[in-house]
């Protein structure tokens, strides 16, 4: 079916290029929604800004790094604490938030002195921390502050600190995707190759594009440790700043989220000849295939089979129990981009569910190629969905459960449709064998809880 214009979009007909319903016999060379382009004025977009893509998604995950936001305090506060990426060092990265706290006076007279003061103060308050990210924001980029010069100045003065500057203000791109891109490429150009790691295994990997949401990384680390595989750089779940500087020494890049971190995997391939294997870490069948692939690469298939057999024995009965009860349930996925294509076949194959509508906030056409290829016929695929489109889609497909962020989640809760946090999870981790059982449990709870039905009852009318 050609691209679709929803009724609610009749006044913004440009939205037609962004909405698609897959019909039998069609493939991605017939229709591919427009994506990673400017949001159309007048549409109620759910996108985040480019700075947020750099800070909230990737940089802010590092467990030993001060995150100095050069801008007004709101830019720091609003990208703090909303994603539950934990660490094994008492969650340093979740406990604190740092800002140069710019006011109008700094915008008029320049904010560099204030930035320097804030950097020095932060290092003095936390003398055990020697690493820092600095982010520019819209205001400080517009007035032309030079945070790199300030950072070099401080590095020289303090002598034992290392600072990385992300120059990606909120307006730099059309969505948070630009922030991923800028951070990846700058990190590659400026920091990778500047630390030599201690190599303790013949089997070394970078794990790229996992951010330890509610402990995902711990699940993956457990598998790789058991297989005798050393993770040289985990980009960036539970990682340190210096681990990510040593990514050039791995033999293989294993990639989960290729949208937020495919760039660094590609650059590592180009510059250091490190090949890239893309895997899906959500889903039973996918996890098994991913581990097997890495096992074949290193010639340790037997170890992988042992691990798979043990994990299957532990978690397969749980999955079967949930499958019986979730079979045929209709699900919508309205998240960032990659989770659409990671999840659609996983829940269909492993749990018998049907994904009936998907919307991506910052996916590129590459992501739509993947999701339309994997997704069902009759399913709705939307780029940069707006609130009114969501209402219309709900009427069309009537999902039993929706995976989305808290912002859209509040909207669907008011309609008494169960929602699960598709970004930061309800009760994760969701990755790996045990994670997928958690995800199934959350869906079972969401679809069977009487709460939504009760909430819809107006007790005044009996």
């Amino acid at each position, binding site marked *: 079916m050609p691209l679709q214009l929803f009724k609610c979009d009749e006044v913004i007909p440009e939205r037609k290029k962004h909405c698609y319903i897959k019909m039998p016999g069609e493939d991605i*060379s017939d229709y591919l929604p427009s994506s990673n382009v400017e949001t159309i004025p007048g549409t109620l977009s759910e996108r985040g800004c480019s700075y947020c893509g750099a800070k909230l998604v990737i940089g802010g995950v590092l467990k030993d790094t001060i995150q100095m936001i050069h801008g007004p305090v709101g830019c720091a506060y609003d990208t703090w604490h909303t994603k539950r990426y934990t660490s094994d060092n008492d969650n340093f990265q979740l406990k604190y938030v740092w800002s140069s706290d710019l006011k109008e006076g700094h915008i008029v007279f320049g904010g560099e002195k204030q930035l320097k003061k804030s950097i020095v103060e932060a290092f003095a308050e936390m003398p055990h921390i020697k690493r820092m990210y600095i982010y520019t924001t819209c205001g400080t980029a517009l007035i032309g502050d030079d945070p790199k010069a300030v950072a070099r100045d401080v590095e020289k003065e303090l002598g034992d600190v290392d600072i990385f500057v992300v120059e990606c203000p909120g307006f730099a791109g059309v969505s948070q995707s630009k922030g991923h891109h800028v951070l990846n490429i700058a990190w590659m150009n400026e920091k990778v190759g500047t630390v030599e790691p201690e190599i303790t295994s013949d089997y070394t990997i970078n794990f790229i594009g996992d951010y330890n949401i509610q402990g995902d990384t711990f699940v993956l680390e457990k598998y790789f440790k058991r297989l005798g595989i050393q993770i040289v750089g985990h980009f960036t779940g539970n990682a340190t700043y210096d681990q990510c500087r040593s990514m050039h020494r791995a033999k293989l890049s294993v990639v989960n989220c290729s949208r937020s971190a495919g760039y660094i995997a590609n650059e590592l391939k180009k510059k250091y000849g490190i090949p890239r*294997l893309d895997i899906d870490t959500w889903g039973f069948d996918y996890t098994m295939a991913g581990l097997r692939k890495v096992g074949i*690469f290193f010639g340790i298939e037997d170890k992988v089979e042992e691990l798979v057999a043990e994990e299957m024995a532990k978690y397969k009965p749980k999955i079967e129990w949930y499958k019986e009860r979730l079979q045929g349930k209709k699900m919508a996925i309205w998240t960032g981009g990659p989770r659409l294509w990671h999840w659609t076949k996983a829940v269909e194959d492993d749990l018998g569910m049907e994904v009936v509508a998907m919307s991506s906030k910052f996916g590129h056409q590459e992501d739509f190629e993947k999701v339309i290829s*994997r997704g069902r016929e009759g399913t709705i695929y939307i780029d940069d969905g707006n609130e009114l489109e969501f209402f219309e889609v709900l009427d069309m497909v009537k999902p039993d459960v929706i995976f989305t962020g808290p912002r859209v989640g509040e909207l669907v809760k008011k309609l008494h449709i169960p929602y699960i946090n598709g970004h930061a999870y309800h009760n994760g981790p969701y990755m790996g064998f045990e994670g997928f059982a958690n995800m199934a449990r959350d869906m079972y709870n969401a679809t069977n809880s009487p709460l939504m039905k009760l909430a819809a009852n107006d007790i005044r009318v009996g």
Partner: protein
Amino acid sequence: MADKVAELYKFFQQRYLWQFYSRAWDRDENINGILDKLPVIFSGGQPEVADTLKDRAFYAEARIVAMEVTERYPWVKDMDVSQLKSTIDAVKEKIIDVTITKSQNGELNIQNY
């Protein structure tokens, strides 16, 4: 044979991420590097694997493809090497056509990542 090619093509499209890497040259390299090893693996042999990390990665992907296809489409076991080769070549042609030649993805030929 056309039915078998269509079946395999659909499965490959749904399953494998290597055909959707960011740029046309990555896709081309992956599709050829992986699929060229398949007929030998399907027929129980050991394909040539160069002593490079890149070729080892292609081999790992190819082995997984062979494992999954054999499990789902047992008729591949009844094919001889030349039938396997022509079937895989036809699948390859279709994948290249859809993911590279006719792709509507505007980023495929951007010079930088």
